[in-house]
């Protein structure tokens, strides 16, 4: 059995761990608020963009439609974009996204498709590199700055270059959707060919009998909007990830702090018992010593 001194050291060590988890929890809570605001601030743009594209897509179709909307007509070469956070200590949030992506990659490979991978966030890279390292196109890190448009712009550009260069047919994005502070759902979303949300198209504005005038023309506007839409969707995913990550980290650290508290209570009781047993034993020795005299 451990001595009282050993147990005291153990308690002190658990206490300092608890301080760290507590601090990390509070930092995550503060950052969560900021990340949530950022994710919400990015929503109007993404929503407007989706509805404009939906409206335009109705009038543009057939062979003249931009490649990013119409697709290559094939389904052979896939690019899987996996977005996670850079850091861990946040429960299963990163692992869940990586697992969803891995399942899809394995399924696609089993069907004989070519799969290539692009990762955003260090955890996505670390989680997939060992198994699929040869399939990597590129890995990006989020870095320490709050993610902004300048982070996703080069990624979007690379995806578009690959696509227009004829190297891939379908692009799917995996990220963690921020449902609420306690729920983040790993989600797959097809980026290319663009999926037009018909629900968005029906909410078209009241034109009072007028007809849209396009400058330059529909096709050219779509040609500039579609690439930008990829960047916008990437940014939305990264921002949701970030908010979800801090929420998950806050929950994980809250649990860790509580576990440490339980452990401290248990250890303290055990230590007190041991100490009391020690004292009792010494008393018995003294008393029986005195009785023997």
């Amino acid at each position, binding site marked *: 059995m451990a001595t009282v001194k050993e147990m005291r050291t153990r308690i002190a060590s658990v206490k300092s761990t608890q301080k760290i988890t507590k601090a990390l929890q509070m930092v995550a809570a503060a950052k969560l608020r900021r990340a949530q605001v950022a994710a919400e*601030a990015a929503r109007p743009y993404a929503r407007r963009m989706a509805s404009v594209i939906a409206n335009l897509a109705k009038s543009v179709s057939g062979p003249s439609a931009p490649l990013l909307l119409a697709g290559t007509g094939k389904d052979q070469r896939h690019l899987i974009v996996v977005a996670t956070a850079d850091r861990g200590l946040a429960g299963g949030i990163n692992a869940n996204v990586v697992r969803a992506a891995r399942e899809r990659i394995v399924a696609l490979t089993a069907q004989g498709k070519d799969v290539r991978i692009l990762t955003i966030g260090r955890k996505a890279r670390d989680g997939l590199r060992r198994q699929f390292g040869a399939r990597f196109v590129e890995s990006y890190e989020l870095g320490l700055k709050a993610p902004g448009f300048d982070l996703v712009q080069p990624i979007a550009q690379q995806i578009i270059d690959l696509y227009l260069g004829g190297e891939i047919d379908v692009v799917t994005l995996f990220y963690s959707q921020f449902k609420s502070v306690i729920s983040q759902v790993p989600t797959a979303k097809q980026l290319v060919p663009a999926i037009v949300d018909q629900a968005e198209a029906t909410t078209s504005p009241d034109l009072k009998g007028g007809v849209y005038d396009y400058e330059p023309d529909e096709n050219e506007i779509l040609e*500039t909007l579609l690439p*930008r839409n990829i960047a916008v969707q990437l940014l939305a995913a990264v921002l949701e990830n970030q908010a979800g990550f801090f929420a998950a980290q806050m929950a994980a650290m809250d649990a860790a702090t509580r576990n440490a508290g339980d452990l401290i209570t248990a250890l303290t009781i055990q230590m007190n018992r041991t100490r009391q047993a020690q004292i009792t034993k010494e008393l018995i020795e003294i008393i029986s010593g005195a009785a023997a005299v």
Partner: protein
Amino acid sequence: MAKFHFSLVSPERELYAGEVDQVDAPGAEGDFGVFEGHEPFMTTLRTGTVTVYAGSARRMFEVQGGFADVTPESFTLLAEQAVEIGAA
């Protein structure tokens, strides 16, 4: 004068939303001004200055690339990058 709804959004946030009298913006094929009741109109944007008139207030934004969606009742400007450069 009748007002209409104008919103200026960049990917990171919404910079302006509210009822305005007039908005001037740099369209791909020439600058244009929008009043209430404008013809439905969509265009891409050049880099330039967007001026928003609301009552006696005037605010100016520098936008870099983007897209404008004008209907008789509203004007939505999706800017790739936008910063406020002045008010009067």
